[in-house]
């Protein structure tokens, strides 16, 4: 890992370049164990969301990313291993006894928070895709985790799919009120509720 100063400087640069205004709606930054789940439209999402968190929270928060993307190339590898301390998931080889959810639970212990993008891949930006079930299984095993919905606005215009050069428009990151998996909530109901929580932030 890099030193705290380097990391804070990198976060500051990321925040300036993304021009993100950060809003906490019915929610406060906290170092308690949380899962931030957000819509996904751009490769920069993880970086921007991570940099939007206060330094103390950021130090305890690990983005979950795809191994094939984040370990390709020196810059991505530098960011995922030295800066984010990202939790990389191998999308090609998902085994039953080595499922991504188990890996996440093992890695975060009882301290770290996670950043996940439950759509599974990047969407066009106009509509938020259906959520994959990983979020549900994660909560099923750890129902104490606080789920924070996050809406990332405008990143799809800053670095759209298939583009290499970012255009420095302004973006807006909204954190919403926490939610938890209810005692006997069905998978489909829970995933719909979580997705609607993100959509609701878009309209605020």
């Amino acid at each position, binding site marked *: 890992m890099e030193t705290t100063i380097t990391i804070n400087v990198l976060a500051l640069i990321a925040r300036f370049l993304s021009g993100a*205004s950060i809003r906490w709606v019915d929610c406060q930054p906290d170092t308690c164990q949380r899962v931030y789940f957000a819509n996904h439209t751009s490769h920069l999402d993880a970086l921007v969301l991570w940099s939007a968190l206060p330094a103390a929270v950021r130090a305890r928060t690990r983005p979950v990313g795809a191994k094939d993307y984040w370990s390709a190339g020196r810059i991505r590898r530098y960011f995922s291993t030295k800066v984010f301390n990202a939790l990389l998931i191998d999308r090609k080889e998902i085994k039953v006894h080595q499922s991504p959810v188990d890996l996440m639970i093992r890695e975060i212990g009882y301290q770290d928070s996670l950043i996940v993008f439950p759509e599974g891949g990047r969407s066009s930006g106009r509509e938020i895709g259906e959520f994959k079930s990983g979020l549900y299984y994660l909560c099923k095993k750890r129902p104490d985790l606080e789920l924070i919905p996050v809406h990332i606005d*405008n990143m799809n*215009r800053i670095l759209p799919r298939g583009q290499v050069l970012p*255009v*420095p428009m*302004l973006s807006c990151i909204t954190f919403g009120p926490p939610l938890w998996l209810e005692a006997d909530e069905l998978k489909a109901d829970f995933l719909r509720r979580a997705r609607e929580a993100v959509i609701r932030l878009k309209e605020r």
Partner: protein
Amino acid sequence: MGDVRAMSLIAGVLVLLGAATAVVQILRRREDPSLNPAILETFRLRVHSWWLLFAILAAACLLGKTVTIILFGGLAFWALREFITLTPTRPGDHNALFWVFFIFPLFQFVFVWINRYELFSIAIPVYAFLFIPARIAMAGDHKRFLERTAKIQAGLLICVYCLSYAPALLSLRAESTTAFSSAGLLLFFVLMVQLSDALQYAWAQMPSRHVIVPAISPGRTWEGLLGGTASVTLIGAALWWATPFNFLGAAMMSAVISLMAFAGGLTMSAIKRDRGVKDYGTLVEGHGGVLDRIDSLCFAAPVFYHFTRWILLSNNDFCEWLRVATSI
């Protein structure tokens, strides 16, 4: 000795801002029930960001032309971000936008820095104007083509081209035969623009209100425009010693600035109305966005620059007459 004038101007502004801060503090202590707390809070936040603006500007003027150009380049860049963010674009515009953000502003401010009038006065209105539609056409998306092109061109012209004329004021002395303080000229200009905004707002609070364009800006009244312009003209005339103009010239220039500041504010309100937002951003507290603060500056800068240039540099009979009539 020219810088003594700039320094006096800075000192004057400091006194003015100090007085405004004191008024805010006294009014807050007194908790006068007849006073609307929302208006006081708005005023307090405005005074805060005036401090910020003038601290940056004074520091830049004292540190020289290069720093001032970098500062205005930064302002232009941020204003352009706000403008394009609120403008609907399509994925096909992405590459053209990259040029609009990184290439054209850079060239524009470098041209201003090396003071090549024949380059910075046409680089964007001619070359960028033609390049942008061609680049968007290359991307192959023809939906609402003219509309998208026009919006991107307008953003670049207003936020980058027009604003770049403000730091260009610093280079006028090098070509002119009249001796005056460059920093004083720029400070005079920014001060008059800010005073126009403030005084037009203050005069609009009068009991009799004849709103000019209710559909776009219910806060702008004829009383505000005329009263504001009259007061700015008087104040500008009183500050003639900081400029290359005489009493009459400074009064005339201040009136022009006030009218252009009004036009700028009104035009940007119209764009904001169309996009359904109140402010362009959230960078400086209480001031909306950067673009909300500099809209009047953007409109006034090219006009002020060209008028000053005519008076100081051009040589034909009319300009000769104007020079004799208005400058020191």
